[in-house]
């Protein structure tokens, strides 16, 4: 099994340069807004979420993870016409959870990344569903088949994207 329990001393902590920390989320947001126009199927992917998970797992800091999640989520919210904060809350939770998991487990290999993304995608959609329905009053329908299909698609994409983003990691 690729996921192995490690002590905190064994887990490597990474950091990112300032340009990478700013430009990677912005690029993800841009691609998320631009690509679905040309490739409609791309709307099932959530690139900003993958970036949140990647940063959270790599930095292994809960505060950093939740703040990164909140920032990227709020930016993503600002591109929609819904109230700002729906994606923000969902991604804050994911950032916190992913970084908490990163502290406990070694999730640097491919299998672990796929499983982690699969799990957190469902968590993200669930929190989004609760907030959007409960607080904003949007009429949403929960479909397990759709959510699981999207989760698998995002997990596969995560394996590719995380490999690309590994190049920007710096040892702390």
């Amino acid at each position, binding site marked *: 099994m690729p996921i192995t329990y490690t002590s905190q001393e064994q887990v490597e902590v990474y950091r990112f340069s300032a340009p990478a920390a700013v430009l990677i989320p912005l690029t993800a947001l841009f691609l998320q807004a631009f690509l679905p126009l040309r490739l409609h199927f791309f709307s099932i992917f959530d690139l900003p979420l993958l970036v949140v998970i990647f940063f959270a797992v790599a930095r292994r800091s809960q505060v950093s993870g939740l703040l990164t999640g*909140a920032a990227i989520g709020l930016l993503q919210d600002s591109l*929609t016409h819904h109230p700002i904060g729906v994606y923000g809350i969902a991604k804050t939770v994911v950032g916190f959870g992913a970084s908490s998991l990163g502290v406990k487990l070694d999730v640097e290999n491919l299998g672990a990344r796929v499983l982690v993304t699969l799990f957190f995608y469902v968590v993200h959609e669930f929190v989004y569903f609760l907030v959007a329905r409960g607080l*904003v009053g949007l009429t949403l329908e929960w479909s397990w088949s759709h959510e699981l299909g999207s989760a698998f698609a995002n997990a596969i994409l995560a394996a590719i994207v995380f490999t690309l983003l590994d190049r920007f990691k710096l040892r702390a």
Partner: protein
Amino acid sequence: MENFLSRYRNVSILVAVLFAQVLGLAVQVKRSTENESTRLIRVWTVSAVSPLEKAIVWFQSGTSNLWHSYVYLRGVRQENRELKDEIEKLRLERVRLVDDAEQARRLQALLGFKEQYISKTIAAQVIGSSGSEQSRSVYIDKGSSQGLEKDMPVITADGVIGRVLKVYPSTSQVLLINDQTSGVGAILEQSRLQGILRGTPAGEVILEKVMSDETVQPGEKVLTSGGDQIFPKGLPIGTVSKVTAGPEVFLNVRVRPATNLNKLEEVLVITRKEERSATVAETAPARAVDILSQRLPSVPDKPRESAAVGSAKTAGAPNRTAGSVPAPQAPAVAKGIKDGAPKSNEAPSTGDAMPGPKVPPVAKSAKGGTAGTDSASTPTPGSVKPAIAQKPAPPAVKVSQQVPNPASAPPKPKPEQQPVVAPVPPGDKPQ
């Protein structure tokens, strides 16, 4: 307390951040009914993302134009020939449509209808989307600096796509009709049933508020009704694709949008609409009764013979059938219509006095008076027939009937007095 916070520092921060966002959401949801201003974070994000999107779209369209306009010209000659043929066909069709449109305009003027005309549009390029399946909106490359404002309708050549939701200096956000928060006043083309077009969470479009006892056929076109005060009336929205029983007493009418909302590239923003009624000048050649006698269901239904009797007897007008022999008094009227110069005492001048879309006064006028002058009584359409048929006149009977023996027919009028095919009402007055 301090120990607690330091011990659970991370969780405390998580709770604080979540609480702040929930609070922010609550404030926004409460204010959403008011005319809220655009949040600064939206402006920042859109300003950061849209220049790159614009640059890519510009480069993409430039490259595509270069390729298709200068390099890839295979089949252009053949296409040109086909397009010329199509233009010829369309020209013929246009003549017919212009005629219909003119008649419609005359009717509108006479009935006091007001119509919204699209007087100015701005072409815009779609540069981005919201990136969320729950927020079906797109960004276009025109904003307040180009004169765009909130709630302006956005269309393509195929039909309506949405309305401007937020305006930034050089970009705007357009809410698509398949978003669950959008709403468009719609009307079915054939059955004239009205409803509200809404999007669903799955991105489909449905027509709401159509009663279940009504009949809606799949394939029927859906148009804007103009009732929402945003979209001008009569723009195509889509086609009914499926009709099922809906909640309560309403039908669930699913609509397939006329435009592919997933592949938007260029759109038109309607920046100015003009509301005006057709002027009397546009009604020039024909009179109210002329048009209404042709269009109203009650009048054409009557037997041909009695109609001809009525028309000839009550007014001495020529029969509408080409080739029939006109009544003695008719040519003057017919000529007047043909010349396109209405006399000062003709009906169009009284068209303005028509009190809104009331048909009966016109029917009353067909009885013997001038159109629109007698609007007090409102007889039912059924009462028109006897009124016309009550005034027989022997010469006109001969006029309207196909006379087998030319020798027994009245003398033919001079060529310039030949009646035109233009509709002549039963209540026409000799001049």
